[in-house]
Structures are given as structure tokens and as C-alpha cells.
């Protein structure tokens, strides 16, 4: 892990997720993608900032809104699209789809369609790392909705008792599906991990550098054997709960959405910083944008052209 990631690279990774998700939305609207997907647009700084603090062999677990985590951990765009389109070349050979992408080579133990369902897996991976004498750490990504699940508290309790190298990254995008988190979450949110004696930090989830700095501190702590951390990232889901959630006026206002998009978009914020500091010129960022668009377009084409699995594969991999 570099001590300080290249800002340009952080920008590129966020842009990759943004363009990836835009194309997912298009594929859905064009009825070219089976099922549906939960877009990560607006939250890119969290996945990118956290994963930039990890090594390839560190573990993550992801959520139903998982494309960003997978890409930030190093998944390839073409195999991601192939999976979303149900193709053999996909990360799960077409058996998982959008909500189950796993990438063992990059330590991604899988997205998960059960809210909070991977809290045990991440914590167990951390336990395993310690049992094996490795200094790997595990990151458990989850949203504010998972704060309603008991599993999270059971595993945080054990992680603290056993000082496991796990980092709980809560992405508070304000909405549990279609319900504001304040309607579902009693008391002070960060008091919950603190009650277990877990090191807890809050960070602006739209500021990728701030997220990275907080994550790097938690990772260092975990690697040094000083136990788990909880990182609360304040962020916003620009789009609906899933691609089909287009009429959102009954649970949030257009003004709210516009203000986050205008003032708090993580990619715009970083672009501004890069140009103001002279790290990058606007034309360089435009060229990068074009490059990323091309990469994503190639991924879409790969996914669309890739063959489906053989029907006979339905019976494979039920038992290891």
C-alpha cells in the first residue's frame, strides 16, 4: 500500500465507477440486462478511499450496492459487465449477478444480497488472518440499513473481545431503501460501536482523501494487532434504491438531490481540488474522462458479446 495514494489515480478510480454505473443504468433501461441493479453513484469516494488503503491480499465484503467496492478493489470492468449480463466470462460465471460478485484474487469475498449479511464473513476472515499468522485485514462495507441487523452487533462484540483486524465501514447514504435512516435509527449512531469498545471515527464520505486518511489509520491499527475500527462515512445515494426507483418524490425532495449533486459530488469535488492545486489541468481530466469512457465501453461490448454459460452448468458447483 502506498503511504499516500496518487490523487490522480483516486480520481480515475472514482470516474471508472461513475461511468460503469451510468452504463449499467443504460443497459437496464434498454432492457439488455436481466434483473436489476443498485447503483453506487454518489458514494464513489468511500469505496475508492477505503480500498486505496488496502493491499491486494486484504479482504473486503460488499453489499447489494456493491459494484463500486468490487471495482475499487481491482475487479476488471469486462468481467464485471459479463457477470451483470449473466455470461460465462463473468466473475461468477453468470451464477451470481449484480449482487454476488466475488473476486477471490483481489480478496473480495463477495457482495451480499442480505442486508448486513456479510458482517460475519468479514469478521471471520479477520479471525482467520490472525489464526494463520498473517497481517491481512478485512473491511466490511455496509449501509445505514444494516444498522438494523442484529448480526452486526454480535460480530462487532466478538471482534472487539478478540481484537480482530476488521474495519466496519458504514456508508450512511441517508436511506434504508425508501426510508430515511432517522426514522429507523435510535440514539447516536456512533455510540453503537463505541459501546463495544471499538475505535470509531466519522468522516465526510464525499471527500476521498479524508476517507483514505481515516481508513489508512484504521488499517494500520488493525495490522498492528490493536483491534477493530468503525468508520462512519457520511455520503449520499444520488440515484434510487435500484435502477427502477425513478419516482422518488414520496421519500425525498428534488432539492435535496440537486444540492448533493451540485455541491457534494465526490468526483466534482476532487476535480476542483486537482485543478486548483495545479495537480492536473482541466484538459488532462477531460482526456482521462475520455479514456475511462472508452475502457467502460469496451467492457460493455465484451459483456454483450460474451457467450452465456452452457445450460448444463446449472448443476455444477452446488457442492465443492
Amino acid at each position: 500500500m502506498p503511504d499516500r495514494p496518487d490523487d490522480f489515480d483516486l480520481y480515475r478510480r472514482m470516474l471508472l465507477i461513475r461511468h460503469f454505473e451510468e452504463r449499467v443504468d443504460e443497459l437496464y433501461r434498454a432492457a439488455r440486462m436481466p434483473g436489476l441493479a443498485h447503483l453506487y453513484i454518489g458514494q464513489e469516494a468511500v469505496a475508492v478511499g477505503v480500498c486505496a488503503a488496502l493491499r491486494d491480499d486484504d479482504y473486503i465484503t460488499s453489499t447489494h450496492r456493491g459494484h463500486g467496492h468490487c471495482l475499487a478493489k481491482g475487479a476488471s470492468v469486462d468481467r464485471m459487465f459479463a457477470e451483470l449480463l449473466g455470461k460465462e466470462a463473468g466473475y461468477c460465471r453468470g451464477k451470481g449477478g449484480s449482487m454476488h460478485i466475488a473476486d477471490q484474487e483481489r480478496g473480495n469475498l463477495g457482495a451480499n444480497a442480505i442486508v448486513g449479511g456479510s458482517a460475519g464473513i468479514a469478521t471471520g476472515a479477520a479471525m482467520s488472518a490472525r489464526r494463520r499468522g498473517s497481517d491481512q485485514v478485512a473491511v466490511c462495507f455496509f449501509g445505514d440499513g444494516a444498522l438494523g441487523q442484529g448480526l452486526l452487533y454480535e460480530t462487532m462484540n466478538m471482534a472487539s473481545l478478540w481484537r480482530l483486524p476488521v474495519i466496519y465501514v458504514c456508508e450512511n447514504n441517508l436511506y434504508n431503501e425508501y426510508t430515511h435512516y432517522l426514522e429507523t435509527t435510535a440514539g447516536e449512531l456512533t455510540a453503537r460501536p463505541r459501546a463495544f469498545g471499538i475505535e470509531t471515527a466519522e468522516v465526510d464520505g464525499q471527500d476521498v482523501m479524508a476517507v483514505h486518511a481515516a481508513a489508512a489509520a484504521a488499517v494500520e491499527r488493525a495490522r498492528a494487532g490493536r483491534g477493530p475500527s468503525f468508520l462512519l462515512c457520511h455520503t449520499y445515494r444520488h440515484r434510487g434504491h435500484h435502477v427502477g426507483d425513478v419516482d422518488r418524490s414520496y421519500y425525498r425532495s428534488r432539492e435535496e438531490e440537486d444540492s448533493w449533486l451540485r455541491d457534494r459530488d465526490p468526483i466534482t469535488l476532487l476535480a476542483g481540488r486537482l485543478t486548483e492545486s495545479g495537480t492536473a489541468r482541466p484538459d488532462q481530466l477531460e482526456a482521462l474522462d475520455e479514456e475511462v469512457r472508452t475502457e467502460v465501453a469496451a467492457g460493455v461490448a465484451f459483456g454483450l458479446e460474451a457467450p452465456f454459460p452452457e445450460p448444463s452448468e446449472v448443476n455444477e458447483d452446488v457442492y465443492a
Partner: protein
Amino acid sequence: MSTLSEAAVGLRELTIGQAVNEALAEEMRRDPAVFILGEDVAEAGTPFKVLKGLVEEFGTERVVDTPISEPGFTGIALGAAMTGMRPVVDIMFGDFLTLVMDQVANQAAKVHYMSGGRLKAPMVIRTTLGATRRSAAQHSQSLHAWVSHVPGLKVALPSTPADAKGLLKTAIRDDGPVVVFEDKMMWQLKGPVPVGEHLIPFGVADVKREGRDVTLVATSSMVQAALAAAEILAGEGVEAEVVDPRTTVPLDREALVASAVKTGRCIVVDEGHRSYGVTGEIASAISEGAFYHLDAPVQRMGAMDVPVPFSPVLEDQTVPTPESIAERARALVRGEL
């Protein structure tokens, strides 16, 4: 009739509890990835003392006491299994499987398939089944049908000390999740157990007693009941064959059908509730495979479809007994069913 490994250098009498303990100790010595976690598994050795002595040999890093958080520690075991370990999870009572069904059915059972075969979850869940312990409705259920219904899980049901050792060792070496049910009333049952390496392949039924007149397919706690019924019947000149599938997943359909073809009569006995359960699956497998060889419809005997009651007068009616099995077999042989 038990399948004994050729590598076995001898036999001696152990209880099922001792056989389980020996299987765990041998596998933990053989493979440092194997570890145990659950409630009161370490110094207490579980409330049933089945794990007694293991923490002294392997330490608290490998025999891990957990909080009373079944979903949490089952999920932690899964994460450990997916990253190079081979955990053995202790779920004290089978009834508590209801608490861990997300981690077992949605997560562990599916991770290999959902990842296109790229992730593996080599973990064992040891738990219990069986009534008649006067433990009432939340500590007496036999829920093996629940997990048998979920593709991706294997399910083992030992009925003898030798099977308990051999099936558990096989379960620990399996690369996927296996749920092993031990009858909480049978840990004290004694029998010959091979010394050392003794593995029983999954999906291989065992004929516990040969007979020509009627087949009693029995699982777990009901194997001893069926053997006792066979003894009663033998005194009346009826030779019952007792076949133990040993694993419900995978199920040795061929062996069950072969026995039913041979005798032409079959009763399936299992301690799960009768409706929508193991007896239904096995009876239909036999009916499909042996239909033209059967003298009568396949009979099913399971636990009554009531929550397990506390009072002995009530509870004892709820599960099949040697007498009730023998009575059904008599009627079947006499052509009354």
C-alpha cells in the same frame, strides 16, 4: 455391518460422545486449520461434556468460547472457512438452527455456487436432534429436514459410535458446509470404534441388520428403535432389515430402493415431524424406485405434528418407539396396510 476402514488397526468400545471427541482431536492434530467455536466449548466442554479435554490439548485459540450469539459466530466461522480455515461450529441444540438460518442457508450453502465455484466454505456445524429428554418444545426438535432442503448443504446423521467418528472426520475434510446432527439421547451409547483413521464416505447407506420380510429405513435416533423393533419381530418369525442412510444429503437412493425391492415392504422411520419431512422424501424415493416390487404403500413414521410437549405422558407419544414400529411392521407383513 458397519463399514470399517482397512487402515483400522483395532476396535474398542467407545460411547458416541467419546467417538465424536476422538474424531475432533484426531482432525485437529492432523490439520492446524481445524478449530472449534461455540458456546461453552472450552473449559466446560459443552453442557454435555462431549468436548471435554480438547481445550487442554489445543488451547483456547483453537477451542474458542463465544458469546451466546449463534448467527454471529456461525457467520464468523463461515468467513474463516472462506479464507483457509476449517471451523467446526457447535450449535448446542438443534432448535437454535432457527437462529442461524441466514448464515447457513443464504450464505454458507450458496457461496460456492454463487461465486461460480470460486469460493469454498469448508465448515462443519455440529448440532443435536431428538426428543424424550423432557426438554420441551424449544430444546427437542429434530430439524434436519430444514437443512436437507437447501441445496449446497450436506447433512450427516450418525447412529453408532463408529459412524459418529467416521462421518465427522469426513465432514471436517469436506470442502463445503456439512451439518452433523447428533442425538442428544445417544451420546452414552457404546459400540466398537476403529482406532485411528476411519472415514465414512457420504451417500453410502449402511445395512445395520439384514432381513428378508420388511425393510425399516431408519435415521439417527430411530436406528436403535428400529433395531429393537427388529429384535421383537425376530421373536415372532419376521425378519426385518434395518437400513441407515447415514446422510440425508447426499442420499443413497439406490441402497434404499434395493432393500425395498428385496423385501417388498418398507417403513421409513425418522424423528423429524412427519409432514413435509425426511420420511416423505425417502418414502417417495423408494416408491419411485421400487413401485412394482412393493406389496403395499411405503409406510412413514415420524414425530407427531405437534410442538414437543414437556410432560412425559404427553412427550412419549410423540416419537416412534420399538413397539410402535414393530406393530406397524406386523400389520404390513400381514397385508393389512
